Protein backbone atom coordinates (compact mmCIF):
# COMPACT_ATOMS: atom_id res chain seq x y z
CA UNK A 1 0.00 0.00 0.00
CA UNK A 2 1.30 3.44 -0.92
CA UNK A 3 2.10 5.75 1.95
CA UNK A 4 3.12 9.39 1.89
CA UNK A 5 5.90 10.56 4.19
CA UNK A 6 5.39 14.07 5.57
CA UNK A 7 7.84 15.72 7.95
CA UNK A 8 7.37 18.72 10.19
CA UNK A 9 10.34 21.08 10.16
CA UNK A 10 9.28 23.78 12.63
CA UNK A 11 6.57 24.19 15.26
CA UNK A 12 6.90 27.94 15.68
CA UNK A 13 8.71 30.88 14.16
CA UNK A 14 11.83 30.66 16.30
CA UNK A 15 12.15 26.87 16.29
CA UNK A 16 15.46 25.01 15.90
CA UNK A 17 16.77 24.81 12.34
CA UNK A 18 18.85 21.58 12.27
CA UNK A 19 16.03 19.07 12.88
CA UNK A 20 14.52 20.03 9.51
CA UNK A 21 17.88 19.44 7.84
CA UNK A 22 18.03 15.99 9.44
CA UNK A 23 14.52 15.30 8.14
CA UNK A 24 15.38 16.53 4.64
CA UNK A 25 18.56 14.46 4.47
CA UNK A 26 17.50 11.25 6.22
CA UNK A 27 13.72 11.27 6.49
CA UNK A 28 13.01 9.81 3.01
CA UNK A 29 10.27 12.43 2.87
CA UNK A 30 7.80 13.38 0.18
CA UNK A 31 6.87 16.67 1.87
CA UNK A 32 8.31 18.91 4.55
CA UNK A 33 6.00 21.39 6.30
CA UNK A 34 6.94 24.37 8.48
CA UNK A 35 4.31 25.96 10.73
CA UNK A 36 5.74 29.31 11.86
CA UNK A 37 2.86 31.77 12.16
CA UNK A 38 1.43 32.52 15.61
CA UNK A 39 -1.83 34.37 16.15
CA UNK A 40 -0.32 37.83 16.55
CA UNK A 41 2.73 37.43 14.31
CA UNK A 42 0.86 38.37 11.18
CA UNK A 43 -0.41 41.61 12.74
CA UNK A 44 3.14 42.62 13.63
CA UNK A 45 4.34 41.52 10.19
CA UNK A 46 1.66 43.69 8.59
CA UNK A 47 2.99 46.73 10.46
CA UNK A 48 6.50 45.87 9.25
CA UNK A 49 5.32 45.64 5.68
CA UNK A 50 3.74 49.07 5.94
CA UNK A 51 7.18 50.43 6.82
CA UNK A 52 9.00 48.34 4.20
CA UNK A 53 7.00 46.83 1.28
CA UNK A 54 9.67 44.12 0.80
CA UNK A 55 9.32 42.94 4.45
CA UNK A 56 6.50 41.27 6.35
CA UNK A 57 7.50 37.61 6.00
CA UNK A 58 9.11 35.35 8.59
CA UNK A 59 12.54 36.63 9.70
CA UNK A 60 14.00 33.09 9.67
CA UNK A 61 12.65 32.17 6.22
CA UNK A 62 15.94 32.77 4.45
CA UNK A 63 18.01 30.92 7.08
CA UNK A 64 15.66 27.92 7.02
CA UNK A 65 15.61 27.76 3.21
CA UNK A 66 19.39 28.09 3.02
CA UNK A 67 19.58 25.07 5.31
CA UNK A 68 17.04 22.76 3.63
CA UNK A 69 16.64 23.73 -0.04
CA UNK A 70 19.62 21.71 -1.29
CA UNK A 71 18.79 18.41 0.46
CA UNK A 72 15.11 18.85 -0.44
CA UNK A 73 15.95 19.48 -4.10
CA UNK A 74 18.30 16.49 -4.11
CA UNK A 75 15.59 14.06 -3.03
CA UNK A 76 12.53 15.75 -4.50
CA UNK A 77 11.02 16.82 -1.18
CA UNK A 78 8.40 19.52 -1.62
CA UNK A 79 8.18 22.25 1.01
CA UNK A 80 5.00 23.83 2.34
CA UNK A 81 5.11 26.68 4.85
CA UNK A 82 3.14 29.64 6.19
CA UNK A 83 6.34 31.69 6.56
CA UNK A 84 4.90 34.12 3.99
CA UNK A 85 3.08 35.80 6.90
CA UNK A 86 1.95 39.25 5.69
CA UNK A 87 3.89 39.05 2.40
CA UNK A 88 3.81 35.63 0.70
CA UNK A 89 4.96 37.02 -2.66
CA UNK A 90 7.92 38.78 -1.06
CA UNK A 91 8.74 35.54 0.72
CA UNK A 92 8.55 33.55 -2.54
CA UNK A 93 10.99 35.99 -4.16
CA UNK A 94 13.34 35.61 -1.18
CA UNK A 95 13.20 31.81 -1.53
CA UNK A 96 13.94 32.12 -5.25
CA UNK A 97 16.96 34.24 -4.45
CA UNK A 98 18.27 31.68 -1.96
CA UNK A 99 17.77 28.95 -4.59
CA UNK A 100 19.79 30.92 -7.14
CA UNK A 101 22.54 31.53 -4.59
CA UNK A 102 22.69 27.78 -3.98
CA UNK A 103 22.85 27.08 -7.71
CA UNK A 104 19.38 25.55 -7.67
CA UNK A 105 17.97 27.47 -10.62
CA UNK A 106 14.62 26.26 -11.94
CA UNK A 107 13.03 25.69 -8.57
CA UNK A 108 9.40 26.78 -8.67
CA UNK A 109 7.81 28.62 -5.77
CA UNK A 110 4.12 29.30 -5.27
CA UNK A 111 3.01 32.29 -3.20
CA UNK A 112 -0.45 31.78 -1.71
CA UNK A 113 -2.24 34.91 -0.55
CA UNK A 114 -5.86 35.97 -0.27
CA UNK A 115 -5.99 35.72 3.50
CA UNK A 116 -5.74 39.51 3.92
CA UNK A 117 -9.42 40.41 4.31
CA UNK A 118 -9.07 43.89 5.77
CA UNK A 119 -10.88 45.27 2.72
CA UNK A 120 -13.62 42.63 2.85
CA UNK A 121 -14.41 43.57 6.46
CA UNK A 122 -14.72 47.29 5.72
CA UNK A 123 -18.21 48.62 6.14
CA UNK A 124 -19.59 45.30 7.35
CA UNK A 125 -21.14 44.50 10.68
CA UNK A 126 -18.75 41.85 11.91
CA UNK A 127 -19.22 40.91 15.55
CA UNK A 128 -16.21 40.11 17.72
CA UNK A 129 -16.10 36.60 19.16
CA UNK A 130 -14.26 37.38 22.40
CA UNK A 131 -16.27 40.36 23.63
CA UNK A 132 -19.23 42.58 22.79
CA UNK A 133 -18.89 44.92 19.84
CA UNK A 134 -17.91 44.80 16.19
CA UNK A 135 -14.74 45.19 14.13
CA UNK A 136 -15.98 48.66 13.13
CA UNK A 137 -15.90 49.70 16.81
CA UNK A 138 -12.11 49.29 16.74
CA UNK A 139 -11.96 52.09 14.18
CA UNK A 140 -8.57 53.18 12.91
CA UNK A 141 -6.78 51.10 15.55
CA UNK A 142 -7.16 48.03 13.30
CA UNK A 143 -3.83 47.09 11.68
CA UNK A 144 -4.63 43.76 10.05
CA UNK A 145 -7.34 41.20 9.35
CA UNK A 146 -6.35 37.75 8.15
CA UNK A 147 -8.66 34.82 7.50
CA UNK A 148 -7.65 31.28 8.35
CA UNK A 149 -7.78 29.98 4.78
CA UNK A 150 -8.33 26.40 3.70
CA UNK A 151 -6.08 24.15 1.64
CA UNK A 152 -7.33 25.40 -1.76
CA UNK A 153 -4.45 27.78 -2.45
CA UNK A 154 -1.79 25.24 -1.49
CA UNK A 155 -3.49 22.65 -3.69
CA UNK A 156 -3.36 25.04 -6.62
CA UNK A 157 0.34 25.62 -5.97
CA UNK A 158 1.08 21.89 -5.92
CA UNK A 159 -0.97 21.33 -9.08
CA UNK A 160 1.03 24.11 -10.69
CA UNK A 161 4.21 22.15 -10.01
CA UNK A 162 5.57 24.19 -7.12
CA UNK A 163 8.58 22.76 -5.28
CA UNK A 164 7.99 25.25 -2.47
CA UNK A 165 4.61 26.65 -1.41
CA UNK A 166 4.69 29.77 0.78
CA UNK A 167 1.43 30.95 2.30
CA UNK A 168 0.11 33.68 4.53
CA UNK A 169 -2.51 32.70 7.10
CA UNK A 170 -4.01 29.25 6.57
CA UNK A 171 -5.44 26.82 9.10
CA UNK A 172 -2.29 25.21 10.53
CA UNK A 173 -3.32 21.61 9.74
CA UNK A 174 -3.99 22.64 6.12
CA UNK A 175 -0.22 22.79 5.55
CA UNK A 176 -0.18 19.01 5.96
CA UNK A 177 -3.70 18.18 4.78
CA UNK A 178 -3.15 19.79 1.37
CA UNK A 179 -0.47 17.32 0.17
CA UNK A 180 -2.66 14.40 1.27
CA UNK A 181 -5.59 15.72 -0.76
CA UNK A 182 -3.29 16.35 -3.72
CA UNK A 183 -1.45 13.01 -3.70
CA UNK A 184 -4.36 10.72 -2.80
CA UNK A 185 -6.96 12.63 -4.79
CA UNK A 186 -9.29 12.93 -1.84
CA UNK A 187 -12.60 14.65 -2.60
CA UNK A 188 -13.06 18.01 -0.91
CA UNK A 189 -16.25 16.69 0.69
CA UNK A 190 -14.84 13.37 1.85
CA UNK A 191 -15.31 14.54 5.42
CA UNK A 192 -13.94 11.46 7.15
CA UNK A 193 -10.70 11.45 5.17
CA UNK A 194 -10.34 15.21 5.61
CA UNK A 195 -10.97 14.66 9.33
CA UNK A 196 -8.26 12.02 9.54
CA UNK A 197 -5.88 14.18 7.53
CA UNK A 198 -6.60 16.99 9.97
CA UNK A 199 -5.63 14.68 12.84
CA UNK A 200 -2.31 14.08 11.08
CA UNK A 201 -1.81 17.80 10.47
CA UNK A 202 -2.64 18.65 14.06
CA UNK A 203 -0.19 16.03 15.36
CA UNK A 204 2.58 17.39 13.10
CA UNK A 205 2.07 21.14 13.32
CA UNK A 206 3.96 21.67 16.59
CA UNK A 207 6.95 19.64 15.35
CA UNK A 208 8.98 18.45 18.38
CA UNK A 209 6.00 18.60 20.70
CA UNK A 210 5.04 15.08 19.59
CA UNK A 211 8.52 13.54 19.58
CA UNK A 212 9.26 14.27 23.23
CA UNK A 213 9.60 18.05 23.27
CA UNK A 214 7.59 19.95 25.86
CA UNK A 215 7.01 16.63 27.61
CA UNK A 216 9.88 15.61 29.89
CA UNK A 217 9.34 15.51 33.65
CA UNK A 218 12.36 13.83 35.25
CA UNK A 219 11.50 10.67 37.13
CA UNK A 220 7.96 10.73 35.75
CA UNK A 221 8.29 11.19 32.00
CA UNK A 222 11.90 10.83 30.88
CA UNK A 223 12.95 11.65 27.34
CA UNK A 224 16.42 10.89 25.93
CA UNK A 225 18.65 13.41 24.19
CA UNK A 226 16.42 16.48 24.00
CA UNK A 227 19.33 18.63 22.77
CA UNK A 228 19.19 16.57 19.54
CA UNK A 229 15.40 16.23 19.42
CA UNK A 230 14.25 14.69 16.16
CA UNK A 231 11.19 16.24 14.52
CA UNK A 232 8.25 14.08 13.46
CA UNK A 233 7.42 12.19 10.31
CA UNK A 234 3.92 10.92 9.51
CA UNK A 235 3.64 7.91 7.21
CA UNK A 236 0.13 8.41 5.93
CA UNK A 237 -1.98 5.79 4.14
CA UNK A 238 -4.61 6.52 1.52
CA UNK A 239 -7.42 6.13 4.10
CA UNK A 240 -5.84 8.82 6.30
CA UNK A 241 -4.56 6.48 9.00
CA UNK A 242 -0.92 7.09 9.85
CA UNK A 243 2.16 6.12 11.81
CA UNK A 244 3.99 8.89 13.68
CA UNK A 245 7.75 8.37 13.85
CA UNK A 246 11.09 10.21 13.56
CA UNK A 247 14.53 9.74 12.05
CA UNK A 248 16.28 6.74 13.59
CA UNK A 249 19.01 7.78 16.00
CA UNK A 250 17.67 11.30 16.58
CA UNK A 251 16.87 12.48 20.10
CA UNK A 252 13.48 12.36 21.76
CA UNK A 253 10.86 9.66 21.89
CA UNK A 254 7.56 9.08 20.13
CA UNK A 255 5.27 7.44 22.69
CA UNK A 256 1.57 6.88 23.31
CA UNK A 257 1.73 9.56 26.00
CA UNK A 258 3.45 12.16 23.80
CA UNK A 259 0.92 11.51 21.02
CA UNK A 260 -2.05 11.86 23.38
CA UNK A 261 -0.72 15.15 24.76
CA UNK A 262 -0.27 16.57 21.28
CA UNK A 263 -3.64 15.33 19.99
CA UNK A 264 -5.44 17.28 22.71
CA UNK A 265 -3.14 20.32 22.55
CA UNK A 266 -5.12 23.54 22.05
CA UNK A 267 -8.31 21.61 21.37
CA UNK A 268 -11.59 22.82 22.82
CA UNK A 269 -14.40 20.33 22.03
CA UNK A 270 -12.50 17.30 20.66
CA UNK A 271 -15.59 16.23 18.69
CA UNK A 272 -15.77 19.53 16.88
CA UNK A 273 -12.41 20.89 15.78
CA UNK A 274 -13.38 23.68 13.40
CA UNK A 275 -11.09 24.05 10.41
CA UNK A 276 -11.73 25.88 7.13
CA UNK A 277 -11.84 22.58 5.20
CA UNK A 278 -13.70 20.30 7.60
CA UNK A 279 -15.18 20.00 11.07
CA UNK A 280 -12.88 17.32 12.39
CA UNK A 281 -13.89 14.90 15.15
CA UNK A 282 -10.98 13.67 17.27
CA UNK A 283 -13.14 11.96 19.89
CA UNK A 284 -12.72 8.49 18.37
CA UNK A 285 -8.96 8.72 17.73
CA UNK A 286 -6.93 5.73 18.95
CA UNK A 287 -3.18 5.27 19.26
CA UNK A 288 -1.23 2.03 19.18
CA UNK A 289 2.49 1.51 19.73
CA UNK A 290 3.64 -0.52 16.72
CA UNK A 291 7.41 -0.33 17.21
CA UNK A 292 10.16 1.69 18.82
CA UNK A 293 9.32 5.38 18.23
CA UNK A 294 6.40 4.29 16.06
CA UNK A 295 2.82 5.08 17.04
CA UNK A 296 -0.13 4.29 14.78
CA UNK A 297 -3.07 6.69 14.76
CA UNK A 298 -6.57 5.94 13.48
CA UNK A 299 -10.20 6.65 14.20
CA UNK A 300 -10.54 10.31 13.26
CA UNK A 301 -13.70 11.37 11.45
CA UNK A 302 -15.20 14.55 10.11
CA UNK A 303 -18.32 16.47 9.20
CA UNK A 304 -19.07 19.26 6.74
CA UNK A 305 -16.85 22.33 6.95
CA UNK A 306 -18.20 25.47 8.67
CA UNK A 307 -19.80 28.13 6.45
CA UNK A 308 -17.52 30.79 7.88
CA UNK A 309 -13.78 31.41 8.20
CA UNK A 310 -12.22 32.59 11.43
CA UNK A 311 -10.52 35.95 11.00
CA UNK A 312 -7.80 37.31 13.30
CA UNK A 313 -8.06 41.07 13.60
CA UNK A 314 -4.95 42.84 14.89
CA UNK A 315 -5.42 46.22 16.52
CA UNK A 316 -3.42 48.69 18.58
CA UNK A 317 -4.77 48.00 22.06
CA UNK A 318 -2.70 49.77 24.70
CA UNK A 319 0.79 50.15 26.12
CA UNK A 320 2.49 48.00 28.74
CA UNK A 321 5.33 48.87 31.07
CA UNK A 322 7.22 46.44 33.23
CA UNK A 323 10.03 46.29 35.77
CA UNK A 324 11.78 43.50 37.65
CA UNK A 325 14.29 43.36 40.53
CA UNK A 326 15.77 40.51 42.57
CA UNK A 327 16.29 40.00 46.30
CA UNK A 328 18.23 37.20 48.02
CA UNK A 329 19.26 35.92 51.40
CA UNK A 330 17.47 35.97 54.76
CA UNK A 331 14.21 37.89 54.67
CA UNK A 332 14.27 38.31 50.90
CA UNK A 333 10.55 37.66 50.46
CA UNK A 334 9.67 40.31 53.08
CA UNK A 335 12.01 42.83 51.38
CA UNK A 336 10.51 41.98 48.00
CA UNK A 337 6.98 42.54 49.31
CA UNK A 338 8.11 45.87 50.76
CA UNK A 339 9.55 46.75 47.34
CA UNK A 340 6.19 46.00 45.67
CA UNK A 341 4.39 48.21 48.21
CA UNK A 342 6.82 51.05 47.53
CA UNK A 343 6.38 50.84 43.76
CA UNK A 344 2.60 50.66 44.13
CA UNK A 345 2.62 53.83 46.20
CA UNK A 346 5.09 55.62 43.93
CA UNK A 347 2.93 54.95 40.88
CA UNK A 348 -0.03 56.39 42.79
CA UNK A 349 1.86 59.43 44.11
CA UNK A 350 3.29 60.29 40.70
CA UNK A 351 -0.05 59.78 38.98
CA UNK A 352 0.78 57.00 36.53
CA UNK A 353 -2.66 56.07 35.21
CA UNK A 354 -2.91 52.31 34.79
CA UNK A 355 -6.03 50.52 33.60
CA UNK A 356 -4.69 47.19 34.89
CA UNK A 357 -1.64 46.19 36.94
CA UNK A 358 0.15 43.18 38.38
CA UNK A 359 2.41 43.23 41.44
CA UNK A 360 3.95 39.80 41.88
CA UNK A 361 6.86 37.72 43.11
CA UNK A 362 8.56 35.51 40.56
CA UNK A 363 9.22 32.25 42.39
CA UNK A 364 6.10 32.60 44.55
CA UNK A 365 2.94 33.72 42.77
CA UNK A 366 3.70 35.05 39.26
CA UNK A 367 3.00 32.29 36.75
CA UNK A 368 0.53 30.82 39.25
CA UNK A 369 -1.41 34.07 38.75
CA UNK A 370 -2.01 34.90 42.37
CA UNK A 371 -1.89 33.58 45.89
CA UNK A 372 -2.05 34.63 49.51
CA UNK A 373 -0.33 38.06 49.80
CA UNK A 374 0.71 37.16 53.35
CA UNK A 375 2.53 34.00 52.18
CA UNK A 376 6.20 34.51 53.07
CA UNK A 377 8.05 31.30 52.25
CA UNK A 378 11.70 30.94 53.21
CA UNK A 379 13.29 31.17 49.76
CA UNK A 380 16.97 31.62 48.85
CA UNK A 381 16.03 34.33 46.34
CA UNK A 382 13.00 35.94 44.76
CA UNK A 383 12.29 38.51 42.02
CA UNK A 384 9.61 41.19 42.00
CA UNK A 385 7.66 41.95 38.88
CA UNK A 386 5.45 44.97 38.27
CA UNK A 387 3.52 45.19 35.00
CA UNK A 388 0.89 47.74 34.09
CA UNK A 389 -1.30 48.75 31.18
CA UNK A 390 -1.44 52.42 30.18
CA UNK A 391 -2.84 54.60 27.41
CA UNK A 392 0.54 56.08 26.47
CA UNK A 393 4.13 54.96 25.98
CA UNK A 394 5.36 57.76 28.26
CA UNK A 395 3.36 56.40 31.17
CA UNK A 396 4.35 52.81 30.41
CA UNK A 397 8.03 53.81 30.64
CA UNK A 398 7.48 55.26 34.12
CA UNK A 399 6.46 51.86 35.51
CA UNK A 400 9.86 50.29 34.83
CA UNK A 401 11.58 53.47 36.05
CA UNK A 402 9.86 53.19 39.43
CA UNK A 403 11.13 49.62 39.77
CA UNK A 404 14.66 50.54 38.72
CA UNK A 405 14.87 53.43 41.18
CA UNK A 406 14.45 50.90 43.99
CA UNK A 407 18.22 50.60 43.61
CA UNK A 408 18.84 53.75 45.66
CA UNK A 409 15.41 54.28 47.23
CA UNK A 410 14.04 50.82 48.02
CA UNK A 411 14.75 47.99 50.45
CA UNK A 412 18.27 46.68 51.05
CA UNK A 413 20.01 44.46 48.57
CA UNK A 414 17.92 44.78 45.39
CA UNK A 415 19.82 43.74 42.26
CA UNK A 416 19.46 42.91 38.60
CA UNK A 417 16.90 45.56 37.71
CA UNK A 418 15.32 45.19 34.28
CA UNK A 419 12.67 47.30 32.60
CA UNK A 420 10.75 47.45 29.33
CA UNK A 421 7.87 49.26 27.70
CA UNK A 422 6.02 48.33 24.52
CA UNK A 423 2.91 48.99 22.51
CA UNK A 424 0.48 46.10 22.61
CA UNK A 425 -0.96 44.99 19.31
CA UNK A 426 -3.66 42.57 20.35
CA UNK A 427 -5.77 40.14 18.35
CA UNK A 428 -9.51 39.56 18.40
CA UNK A 429 -11.53 37.34 16.10
CA UNK A 430 -14.57 37.50 13.91
CA UNK A 431 -16.21 35.27 11.31
CA UNK A 432 -16.41 35.86 7.56
CA UNK A 433 -18.52 33.86 5.08
CA UNK A 434 -16.21 31.41 3.24
CA UNK A 435 -16.97 32.86 -0.21
CA UNK A 436 -15.73 36.31 0.85
CA UNK A 437 -12.08 35.15 0.90
CA UNK A 438 -10.57 33.43 -2.12
CA UNK A 439 -6.96 32.25 -2.38
CA UNK A 440 -4.70 33.86 -4.96
CA UNK A 441 -1.64 31.97 -6.23
CA UNK A 442 1.39 33.42 -8.01
CA UNK A 443 4.46 31.53 -9.18
CA UNK A 444 8.13 32.52 -9.03
CA UNK A 445 10.86 30.54 -10.75
CA UNK A 446 14.41 30.68 -9.44
Amino acid sequence: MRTLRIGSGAGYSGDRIEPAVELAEQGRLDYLGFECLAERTIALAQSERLRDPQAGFDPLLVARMRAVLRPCAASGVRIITNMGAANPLGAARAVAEVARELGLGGIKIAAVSGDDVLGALAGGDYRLLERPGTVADLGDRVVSANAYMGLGGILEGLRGGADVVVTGRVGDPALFLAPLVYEFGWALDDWDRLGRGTVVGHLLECAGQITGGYFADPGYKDVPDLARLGFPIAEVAEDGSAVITKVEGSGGRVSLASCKEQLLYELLDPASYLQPDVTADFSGVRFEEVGPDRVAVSGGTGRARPDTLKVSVGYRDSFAGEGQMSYAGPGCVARARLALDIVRERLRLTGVAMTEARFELIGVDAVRRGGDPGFTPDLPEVRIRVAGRTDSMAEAVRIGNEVESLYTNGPAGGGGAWKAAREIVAVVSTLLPQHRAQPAVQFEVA
Partner: protein
Amino acid sequence: MQLRERAHARTGDKGNISQISVIARDPGDYAWLAEHVTAARVKAHLAATGAERVERYELPGLGALNFVLHGALAGGVTRSLALDAHGKCLGAVLLELEVPEISSLCV
Protein backbone atom coordinates in the same frame (compact mmCIF):
# COMPACT_ATOMS: atom_id res chain seq x y z
CA MET B 1 -1.53 11.99 46.90
CA GLN B 2 -1.04 14.51 44.12
CA LEU B 3 -2.67 14.01 40.73
CA ARG B 4 0.85 13.98 39.25
CA GLU B 5 1.34 10.43 40.57
CA ARG B 6 -1.34 9.07 38.24
CA ALA B 7 -1.68 11.55 35.38
CA HIS B 8 0.18 13.92 33.10
CA ALA B 9 -0.99 17.17 31.53
CA ARG B 10 -0.31 19.62 28.72
CA THR B 11 -1.61 23.17 28.48
CA GLY B 12 -2.58 25.15 25.40
CA ASP B 13 -4.26 28.49 24.76
CA LYS B 14 -6.88 29.88 22.38
CA GLY B 15 -7.57 33.58 22.82
CA ASN B 16 -8.64 34.11 26.41
CA ILE B 17 -9.23 30.37 26.93
CA SER B 18 -6.78 28.06 28.67
CA GLN B 19 -7.02 24.42 27.72
CA ILE B 20 -5.54 21.66 29.87
CA SER B 21 -5.52 17.97 29.01
CA VAL B 22 -5.22 15.54 31.93
CA ILE B 23 -4.22 12.08 30.82
CA ALA B 24 -4.12 8.93 32.97
CA ARG B 25 -0.67 7.26 32.89
CA ASP B 26 -2.56 3.95 32.97
CA PRO B 27 -5.74 4.14 30.85
CA GLY B 28 -7.25 1.68 33.34
CA ASP B 29 -7.41 4.55 35.83
CA TYR B 30 -9.79 6.53 33.62
CA ALA B 31 -12.95 5.94 35.71
CA TRP B 32 -11.08 7.00 38.86
CA LEU B 33 -9.73 10.06 37.07
CA ALA B 34 -13.18 11.05 35.80
CA GLU B 35 -14.64 10.63 39.29
CA HIS B 36 -12.10 12.81 41.09
CA VAL B 37 -10.97 15.41 38.58
CA THR B 38 -14.20 17.28 37.96
CA ALA B 39 -14.71 20.63 36.27
CA ALA B 40 -15.67 22.12 39.65
CA ARG B 41 -12.43 20.93 41.31
CA VAL B 42 -10.32 22.24 38.43
CA LYS B 43 -12.07 25.61 38.61
CA ALA B 44 -11.48 25.80 42.37
CA HIS B 45 -7.81 24.76 42.16
CA LEU B 46 -7.08 27.31 39.45
CA ALA B 47 -9.30 30.04 40.94
CA ALA B 48 -6.40 32.52 40.82
CA THR B 49 -6.74 32.59 37.02
CA GLY B 50 -10.18 34.13 37.38
CA ALA B 51 -11.67 31.57 35.00
CA GLU B 52 -15.39 32.24 34.67
CA ARG B 53 -16.45 28.82 33.46
CA VAL B 54 -14.78 25.43 33.13
CA GLU B 55 -15.97 22.76 30.72
CA ARG B 56 -14.81 19.15 30.78
CA TYR B 57 -14.71 16.88 27.74
CA GLU B 58 -14.32 13.14 28.30
CA LEU B 59 -12.11 10.92 26.15
CA PRO B 60 -12.40 7.44 27.64
CA GLY B 61 -10.72 5.89 24.58
CA LEU B 62 -7.55 7.84 25.39
CA GLY B 63 -7.96 7.70 29.17
CA ALA B 64 -8.05 11.45 29.13
CA LEU B 65 -10.05 14.52 30.13
CA ASN B 66 -9.90 17.87 28.38
CA PHE B 67 -10.58 21.00 30.43
CA VAL B 68 -11.53 24.29 28.81
CA LEU B 69 -11.15 27.30 31.12
CA HIS B 70 -13.01 30.31 29.75
CA GLY B 71 -11.66 33.73 30.67
CA ALA B 72 -8.56 32.27 32.34
CA LEU B 73 -5.82 34.13 30.48
CA ALA B 74 -6.18 37.76 31.56
CA GLY B 75 -7.31 38.79 28.08
CA GLY B 76 -5.34 36.21 26.11
CA VAL B 77 -1.73 35.91 25.06
CA THR B 78 -1.72 38.94 22.77
CA ARG B 79 -3.03 41.30 25.46
CA SER B 80 -2.17 39.78 28.83
CA LEU B 81 0.23 41.41 31.29
CA ALA B 82 0.98 38.04 32.90
CA LEU B 83 4.54 36.70 33.03
CA ASP B 84 3.34 33.46 31.44
CA ALA B 85 0.86 35.03 29.05
CA HIS B 86 0.04 31.66 27.45
CA GLY B 87 -0.71 30.10 30.84
CA LYS B 88 1.63 27.26 29.87
CA CYS B 89 2.48 26.55 33.52
CA LEU B 90 -1.12 25.99 34.59
CA GLY B 91 -1.24 22.29 33.69
CA ALA B 92 1.64 21.54 36.04
CA VAL B 93 -0.09 23.58 38.77
CA LEU B 94 -3.18 21.44 38.25
CA LEU B 95 -1.11 18.27 38.81
CA GLU B 96 -0.78 19.38 42.46
CA LEU B 97 -4.47 18.57 42.94
CA GLU B 98 -4.94 16.23 45.93
CA VAL B 99 -6.69 13.02 44.93
CA PRO B 100 -7.42 9.83 46.89
CA GLU B 101 -5.21 6.77 46.45
CA ILE B 102 -6.67 4.19 44.12
CA SER B 103 -8.00 1.41 46.32
CA SER B 104 -7.06 -2.11 45.24
CA LEU B 105 -10.67 -3.11 46.01
CA CYS B 106 -11.94 -0.56 43.55
CA VAL B 107 -12.01 -2.22 40.16
